[in-house]
């Protein structure tokens, strides 16, 4: 019951904008908001576990998002220029292009993530100030690398034909790609939840998020688990990057930094270390951003800060915070 309360309260609140717009606009904005929320969730899920398990503030998480987007961009571009997999009116080829872009981005991000964790993060365990400085430093280096390899300007991300345009559902226009993003987000959430609740590694990670010291004196090498979580979180950030690139149909070197701000807000709203909290927080941020951007465009970013402050006043540990 106590777990359901924040979900019900949020759901009720999000019917409110209906009073200020017609139903069609509302549905369009809701789909866009849910999609944006799901993409932020992909970034926040890794961030919340990385912070929850080892108290590590990883500001380089956004750079992994950018790297994922660019690697996915290169693969999509290549497949489309060589064989026209994006432009082809073929669902299998279009899906294959998306899958290949995602896979390549995730593989590169896992490698980069492990390298970051070993070289940059490990020496500064337990020291937040150093973590912020060194991961911000790493972000600058990684973003510069992107500018060197791919150039400093915005580029157009090829979007497979299947995912372009919209479906017409009972006179309401529903854009296709956001629906794909929502479905993918739900699948990722279910996958993480199953891993955390049904496997031994998940059990140890959940226990470690609550009390890392205790998990070590029960005989578990927490660093080994942390490396895995860091790698998985990096892969999710890269997945978010590819999806965001297709969602916004562009890639930019600084795209990760902007997402990171949203993701941190989401992690704090949801409660540090809680994946379910992050999902809920991400949907709140995505939806309110879209509603408010339509109604009062100037307040779109401010509304998320306001929501964060409000939630922290009501529940200082966030929606699902363990209160550690």
């Amino acid at each position, binding site marked *: 019951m106590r777990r359901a309360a924040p979900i019900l309260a949020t759901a009720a609140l999000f019917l409110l904008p209906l009073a200020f717009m017609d139903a069609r606009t509302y549905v369009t904005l809701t789909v866009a908001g849910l999609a944006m929320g799901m993409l932020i969730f992909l970034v926040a899920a890794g961030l919340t576990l990385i912070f929850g398990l080892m108290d590590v503030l990883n500001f380089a998480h956004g750079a992994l998002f950018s790297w994922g987007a660019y690697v996915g961009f290169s693969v999509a571009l290549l497949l489309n220029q060589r064989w026209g997999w994006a432009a082809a009116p073929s669902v299998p080829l279009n899906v294959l292009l998306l899958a290949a872009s995602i896979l390549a981005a995730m593989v590169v991000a896992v490698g980069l993530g492990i390298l970051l964790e070993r070289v940059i993060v490990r020496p500064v365990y337990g020291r937040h100030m150093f973590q912020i400085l060194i991961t911000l430093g790493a972000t600058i280096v990684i973003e510069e690398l992107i500018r060197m390899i791919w150039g400093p300007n915005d580029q157009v991300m090829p979007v497979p034909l299947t995912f372009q345009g919209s479906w017409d559902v009972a006179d309401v226009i529903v854009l296709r790609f956001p629906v794909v993003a929502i479905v993918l987000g739900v699948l990722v959430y279910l996958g993480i939840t199953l891993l955390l609740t049904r496997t031994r590694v998940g059990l140890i990670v959940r226990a470690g998020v609550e009390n890392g*010291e205790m998990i070590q004196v*029960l*005989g578990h090498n927490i660093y080994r688990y942390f490396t895995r979580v860091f790698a998985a979180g990096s892969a999710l950030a890269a997945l978010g990057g590819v999806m965001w690139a297709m969602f916004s149909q562009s890639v930019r070197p600084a795209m990760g930094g902007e997402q990171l701000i949203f993701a941190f807000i989401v992690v704090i709203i949801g409660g540090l270390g809680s994946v379910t909290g992050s999902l809920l927080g991400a949907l709140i941020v995505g939806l309110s951003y879209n509603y408010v951007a339509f109604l009062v465009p100037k307040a779109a970013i401010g509304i998320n800060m306001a929501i964060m402050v409000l939630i922290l006043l009501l529940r200082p540990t966030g929606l699902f915070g363990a209160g550690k």
Partner: protein
Amino acid sequence: MPPEPPPAAPALLEVEDLHTYIGQHHILQGVSLRARRDAVTVILGRNGAGKTTTMRTIVGLLRPRAGAIRFEGRPIHGLPPYEIVRLGIGFVPEGQGIFATLTVDENLRVAMLDENPESRDRLPRIFALFPALERFRQARAGTLSGGQKQMLSIARAFVNPNRLLLIDEPSKGLAPIIVEHLVAALQEMKSQVTVLLVEQNFAMASALGDDFYLLDDGRTVHHGRMVDLVHDHALKKRYLGV
């Protein structure tokens, strides 16, 4: 010719002149103790004497600046905590350290080390000692009473076939009747495992203890047999205020 004195039974755990710093503070300034096999050794001392720091140094959560810790004759200081406990040491920390968001069952499972299939077979014995844990197996550990949390913490250290249990102030904050139950359970466990116990409750300490070590200001200042301490009112008054 007088008979040779019997060689002193080798202690399971030996701590020699331990010095531990927390930040800049020199907290342990020479702690020494030996835990005899199959005995209960009690660490006594006032609040802030360094009892918890000693336990945390033994399991590797704090690194000693000087001194030695040997388990079964093997030096363990300098090893990380997860390697130290895998040698056969169970740790019940001050304040229980249970995972409140996990169920009782998950708390026990996370403690079972993979290479010990024997652990599963120990569960019936644990549930016989602490029947409440079996009843609330699927409950979130955070919803247990203080006494049940303590039992869970002890059970968690007992699921593996450990040779040594380190237990830090198990009676803290518990009602007398619950403490009695804990004493009874620990009496039973005594025959199967060596225990190093920190305990401020003198009734509990003297009921369970065979040997005692007295810490003051981060140093071992006295040690001996528990039975002797029980009658040494001057010593008790000076260091324990009882």
